[in-house]
């Protein structure tokens, strides 16, 4: 079956630095990917999405890059802030349903 996974379960970044969270997927059949942020005790919150006809998409302080050749997706957070501390998930749409990765916990160091 399809799988979506993250390279690192945890990531620590100094406040003010840029963060890069990576994700790999097994099946090129997905044409839609989403990044979510989940804070402790809350549900996942939509950050940014990208469709397969794009390589890059930017939001406020966040950029998603999609490399279909190597089936890799990344989320870049610019000038990481303490409020960015959370678990980040990638998800790919396969058929009618999303497959989620296990998440990377981002810790922002003062």
């Amino acid at each position, binding site marked *: 079956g399809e799988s*979506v996974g993250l390279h690192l*379960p945890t990531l620590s970044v100094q406040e003010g630095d840029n963060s890069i969270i990576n994700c790999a997927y097994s099946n090129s059949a997905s044409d*839609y990917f*989403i990044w*979510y942020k989940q804070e402790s*005790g*809350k*549900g*996942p*919150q*939509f950050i940014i*999405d990208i469709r397969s006809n794009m390589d890059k998409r930017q939001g406020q302080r966040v950029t998603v890059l999609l490399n279909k050749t190597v089936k890799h997706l990344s989320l870049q957070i610019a000038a990481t802030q303490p409020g960015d501390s959370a678990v980040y*998930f990638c*998800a790919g*749409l396969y058929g*009618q*349903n*999303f*497959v*989620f*990765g*296990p*998440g990377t916990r981002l810790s922002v160091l003062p």
Partner: protein
Amino acid sequence: SQTIHQWPATLVQPVGSPLSLECTVEGTSNPNLYWYRQAAGRGLQLLFYSVGIGQISSEVPQNLSASRPQDRQFILSSKKLLLSDSGFYLCAWNRDSNQPLHFGDGSRLSIL
């Protein structure tokens, strides 16, 4: 704007007792509705989804069931809870299957 509500936020139940978790969506009509379970260190597991009233699709065999009695209401139930039913349950909605999912804040279920 659209909002999604789940309740209860936390629940402690004995083994063998029944379960009812509720989810409602406001500000939209005819949403797709989903129930997920989240285990520590693993991706969200889809349990049920619904594209309309009374229409339920189950993704995995289990001790749970789902119902959609109204357009914007989705209920997760069990007649007899097992220890393995413990977990964090998330309800979500989207307008179409190729649109982002929007999640509630979850219900944490502990089985004693």
